[in-house]
């Protein structure tokens, strides 16, 4: 760079640099202030501002945030714009479904709420509700609407909807996730068991598992009679052992409908028996092991004969991953003959955040979407169990065996406690299960510790 030349040029008045690079010279162009210009600008403003307002007032858009992908397959008709056509026309709104990632959905919603920029309707796991209520994120449903709903739906749906006496925070979606015992019919036949009859009691369950287990040449188990979940998120572990815990009389939180307060009730004889069941199967029967931590995958791969988890995921995955699998589903075994088999019942729910821009419209849209007519129409389309009692009187729900089998599961349906401290309770129980089955602690010690932690979590959340 030749500084000298430039400097000389400036000194001699021969400026070698273009005008724009001269510092200190500002070549500005201003719009001259003349009456005609002022008039034009005023007119323009007068035209633009109202039309903006009109545009805004003409059509509101309600956004519905939901987890995209396979996880909502079969329960996400709201994604289809045609579904909303009737509602949109009557109310002059547009409904827009926005897909989120299931993994990080909760954080995304929380951050959006903090920025006051959140969707109008949220379609979430019903396990989110407790945390969201605790943070003050949700708008409660109007009492009259809640009353109408609770009076018209099936008892297990009422269980999922109510958060304390008559209070609702949203509409639970159809296609509730039922947990069921699934078994491999070919394995049953091979072991000389009736392929259409699952084990009814815990004793039978242990016998079946023993018969179904297979070993390889070295004596290492190559196929377990029953695969169980013992790693990963605590909620997954607890969910998948719920049938044994609740079935034996261990309760996560009592009373179950207490939003705040209450205490844990799983450190009792039933809880111990539930944990001991699997422990005995590992150590004594040797019909299962810790090496099959993903029960659904093991079941679909054919290296587990029985497992207990969400029915809908097996139903969705089996055609692709194990097209030749001949499987059955039914209620889990009970501890003693005569007990009612317990199944965990949960699913998705529509909620409205407190900071939503169009709250009233959102609730209106949800009422329309979850009306008896729409319930019948969509459940029929998706082969899901309807929520309204009246709809069960109609075909195909009334007489099809598939639906009747599902219906038979419902009396034993139990929902997860709604307590604000449930997260902590589940963590504690999950850790206890892991410790016991990993032989880290005795069943008694593990449950005692979990009880302490769970009560602490409940107390913390009640503050």
């Amino acid at each position: 760079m030749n500084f000298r030349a430039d400097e000389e040029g400036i000194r001699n008045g021969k400026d070698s640099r273009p005008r724009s690079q001269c510092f200190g010279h500002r070549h500005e162009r201003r719009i001259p202030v003349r009456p005609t210009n002022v008039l034009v600008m005023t007119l323009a403003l007068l035209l633009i501002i109202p039309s903006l307002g009109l545009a805004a007032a003409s059509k509101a858009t309600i956004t519905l945030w939901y987890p995209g992908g396979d996880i909502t397959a079969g329960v996400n008709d709201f994604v289809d714009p045609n579904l909303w056509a009737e509602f949109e026309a009557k109310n002059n709104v547009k409904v827009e479904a926005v897909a989120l990632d299931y993994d990080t959905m909760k954080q995304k919603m929380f951050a959006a709420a903090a920025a006051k920029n959140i969707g109008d309707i949220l379609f979430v796991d019903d396990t989110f509700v407790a945390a969201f209520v605790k943070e003050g994120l949700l708008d409660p449903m109007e009492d009259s609407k809640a009353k109408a709903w609770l009076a018209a739906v099936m008892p297990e749906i009422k269980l999922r909807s109510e958060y304390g006496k008559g209070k609702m925070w949203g509409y639970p979606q159809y296609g509730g996730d039922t947990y069921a015992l699934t078994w491999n019919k070919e394995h049953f036949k091979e072991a000389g068991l009736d392929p259409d009859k699952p084990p009814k009691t815990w004793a039978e369950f242990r016998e079946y598992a023993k018969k179904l287990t297979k070993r390889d040449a070295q004596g290492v188990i190559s196929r377990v009679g029953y695969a169980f979940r013992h790693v990963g998120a605590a909620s997954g572990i607890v969910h998948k052992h719920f049938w044994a815990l609740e079935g034996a009389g261990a309760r996560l939180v009592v009373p179950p409908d207490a939003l705040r307060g209450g205490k844990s009730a799983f450190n009792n004889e039933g809880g111990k028996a539930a944990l001991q069941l699997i422990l005995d199967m590992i150590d004594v029967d040797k019909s299962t092991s810790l090496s099959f931590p993903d029960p659904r995958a093991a079941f679909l791969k054919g290296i587990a004969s029985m497992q207990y988890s969400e029915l809908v995921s097996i139903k969705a995955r089996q055609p692709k991953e194990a097209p030749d699998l001949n499987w059955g589903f039914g209620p889990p075994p009970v501890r003693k003959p005569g007990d009612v088999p317990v199944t965990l019942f949960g699913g998705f729910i529509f909620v409205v955040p407190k900071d939503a821009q169009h709250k009233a419209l959102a609730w209106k849209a949800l009422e329309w979407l979850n009306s008896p007519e729409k319930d019948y129409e969509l459940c029929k389309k998706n082969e899901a169990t309807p929520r309204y009692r009246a709809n069960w009187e109609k075909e195909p729900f009334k007489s099809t065996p598939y639906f009747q089998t599902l219906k038979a599961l419902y009396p034993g349906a139990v929902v997860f406690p709604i307590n604000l401290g449930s997260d902590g309770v589940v963590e504690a129980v999950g850790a206890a299960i892991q410790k016991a089955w990993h032989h880290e602690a005795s069943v008694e010690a593990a449950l005692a510790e979990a009880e302490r932690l769970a009560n602490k979590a409940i107390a913390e959340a009640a503050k």
Partner: protein
Amino acid sequence: MTRARRRSLRQVLTRLSSRHILHAYFFIAPVILLFGIFRVVPSIQTLLYSFYKVELLRNRFTFIGLENFSDLFADEIFRGAALNTLKYVLTIVPISAFLGLVLAVMFNTKFHLKEFFKAVYFSPMVTSTVAAAMVWWWMYNPQFGIFNVLLKLVGLPSQPWLMSSRMALPSIIIFSIWKNLGYNMIIYLAGLQAIPPQFYEAATIDGAGGLSRFRHITIPLLAPTTTFILIYNSISAFQVFDQVFVLTSGGPANSTNVVVLDLYRQAFQRFNFGYAAAEAMVLFLFIMGVTILQYVYSKRFEVAY
């Protein structure tokens, strides 16, 4: 303004400009501003938040003094996480440093393909910890992973690895050693090569054997490098997160829960920001304490010839 005052103002400005004061401030402004907003202020805020109950959505910040900290110390899960983190640090730092030194010594000799092997040993460092941990997650798989397959091949029983609350943390430690080996080796090698050969020659003339030379020349002269390695490895070991997140998520039964993972869970999954801030402060104090301790301790061993 009088002429006299105007002149002195110009003098001041000239002096300033010859010292480039304005330039200095302009040049450091972006860095200072950006750090200020996004690093310094948040650090101080985290300290403040640790004394509050933070309810972000309700925009409610309640001062609760030391309650977060007392809850922290009463929390068995956090105590477990702190213990696991300590176990992790106390195991991995000496082993990594030692292995790094051994390898560096081996590499300080002449042999074919030295550069090639050096590159091979260093390669794990350039991959992201997450991706490498994913590969090891697969290798640790109890049924089909390569480790149990190799064990089966030689007739030994297969191990549960990441599925056992007793083996999970050691399994993570083995991964971390693999990942960081090359770095320690490279640093030690540089340190070794900085030792003037005259020392060794003089010692040999005086009749010192190989081992004696190592003990009395190499180790003391490597002291600054060792200090650096110990401090650097400790700081990053205290902050371990990526591999735990991928390999075990803190399980089974919280046996691999470490402080940063617990912090992450409390803050970004449970939204307990005040509590998490307290955890962050405890972590910070630990790191500072260990760093200072190591630095002071090491000064005793530094030798200058």
